[in-house]
Every structure is written in structure tokens, then in C-alpha cells.
């Protein structure tokens, strides 16, 4: 019966293969991060850029580990205009766009930095 079903379904599989390149379909499987010891999770956090590090606080344990792990930002640039918050070519540099509408968030972020981040230099660029 199995062979018969395979035969009957073969044309469907072929049609799907024509529409989609199944070899390209890659399903990202979940990673058991919480089974790792805290020290290793901290190493992983240190390899994230500042923005992804902030986003990675997706549960209480990660929030506390991120808080407990001291790190350094080489340059925090506060500026007007559009710019990516991180510069992929310069690790440790963060760009923060000055925007009155999001000022409370800027303050909240600066207060968060004060807890566990050492900022080497701050650069203001206001036109």
C-alpha cells in the first residue's frame, strides 16, 4: 500500500520540485541556549552587537546575565539624521539618533548603560 501511495503522490512531489527548489529551504531549528552554563551564555552575549544584546534580553535569565556582564562601548555617537544604530565595520561603536519623539527611550537606554556598560567616549553631532 505504501508503494502505491508513493506512486500516486509522485506527480505532486515533482510539481513542488518544479515550483520550489527544496534544497534551498532551510528550517532553523531551536537551539537549547538555556541548557548552557551562565559563563558560556555571557560569551555569546559578548559576541552580539549592542543592539542585538539589548534585544537578546528575551527572558529573565538572559536579562540578568546581560545586566551582570560588564562590557565596554568604544564610542557612543548621538546625532541628528538617519543612521544605523550600529556600524558593522566598527565593533563597539553605537549611533543614537537624536529625536524628540523618542527622547524618553534615549534616556531609558542611557540609564540602562549606566548599570553595566563603560562608554569610552561620547560624541554629539547636532546641526
Amino acid at each position, binding site marked *: 500500500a505504501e508503494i502505491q501511495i508513493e506512486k500516486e503522490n509522485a506527480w505532486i512531489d515533482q510539481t513542488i520540485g518544479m515550483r520550489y527548489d527544496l534544497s534551498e529551504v*532551510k528550517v532553523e531549528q531551536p537551539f*537549547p541556549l*538555556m541548557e548552557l552554563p551562565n559563563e558560556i551564555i555571557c560569551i555569546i552575549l559578548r559576541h552580539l552587537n549592542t543592539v542585538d544584546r539589548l*534585544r537578546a534580553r528575551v*527572558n529573565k535569565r538572559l536579562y540578568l546575565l546581560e545586566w551582570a556582564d560588564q562590557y*565596554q562601548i568604544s564610542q557612543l555617537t548621538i546625532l541628528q539624521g538617519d543612521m544605523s544604530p550600529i556600524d558593522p565595520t566598527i*565593533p563597539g561603536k553605537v549611533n543614537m539618533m537624536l529625536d524628540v519623539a523618542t527622547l524618553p*527611550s534615549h534616556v531609558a537606554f542611557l540609564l540602562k548603560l549606566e548599570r553595566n556598560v563603560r562608554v569610552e567616549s561620547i560624541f554629539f553631532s547636532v546641526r
Partner: protein
Amino acid sequence: RIYPLMRVTLTTSDGASVTVSRQLTKHSGFIEKAITDMAVDDNAVPLSAVAVDVDDATLKLVIEWLTEHRDDALPYPEKTDEERRADDIPAWDQAFVQKWDTKEDQQQTLYAVITAADKLDIKGLLDMTCKTLANKINGKTVEEMREILQLECDFTEEELAEIRKENAWCEN
């Protein structure tokens, strides 16, 4: 220090044994310490077995990585926060990890190699595998991170609001 002749027999958690050159095991702080603790002659061939808490399949991957990196400088150079980045994984290492991506248990393999590198104290391998995982998370939204890491949100509404406030400046 070079150990051209000396070989070490490693016994795995699932009962297998592998004999490898000391040129490879010198990168493992755990194995080096075990050998030092045995206080044996460096020229003894082979050494008494060193038991490692790593299964055979994972140890094979570790040895494959060590073989490629046998000439890497020791001690492993520590990087400052400014120098640290996840996009500088050497091409050979990227290909090495990508081989697992075709496996159904790709993430379990990555997990096994990370924990093996930690247990065996192989800093270069631990660093590379942690970078690999960081690269899987980098650039993802909070929801995508939760999905990849299969994590439930256990924050209270107030805690969540505070985190959203701290993150809002970089979310648009």
C-alpha cells in the same frame, strides 16, 4: 613547546578511545592539566588514557577542528570588547560548521561542540562556536530570537514595558 612524538589516548563518555598527537591536545587546557597531574615522562608513548566527558561523535569533530588548528598560537589571544566581533570566523571554520547545517540535529551538534569545547577548555573552538551561535541571533527581532532559542517570555507586564522602553530607540 612542541610534542612531536608523544601521543595521548582519550577515552570518551560512551566508551570509545582515540589516540591523538600531543600537538593537538596542547590546545586543550583540560587534557594538558590531566597530563601534568599524571606527572609522566613527556616522551612516554602512548600516555595512560585521559577520560573526557565528551561522546565519541563530538570528540571526532573536536579532533577535526584541532587538526586544522594544530599550529595556532598559544595562549589563545584574548580580545577586548572593541575588538570582539562575530563576523571574523575563518573560512575553514565556517565550512566546518556549515557541514552540520545539513544534518537534522544541526543545533544539537553545535550545542554538543560548544559544551565539549568548554569541558575540554579549548578556547579557540569555544570562541568560534559561540560566534556561530551569535551570528544566528544577530539581526533578529525579539520574536525571532524567542523562536530560535525557544524561550518563553517570563517577564511581568511592567518589566516588559521597561525593556521595550530601553530598546525603542534602536527598533525603528
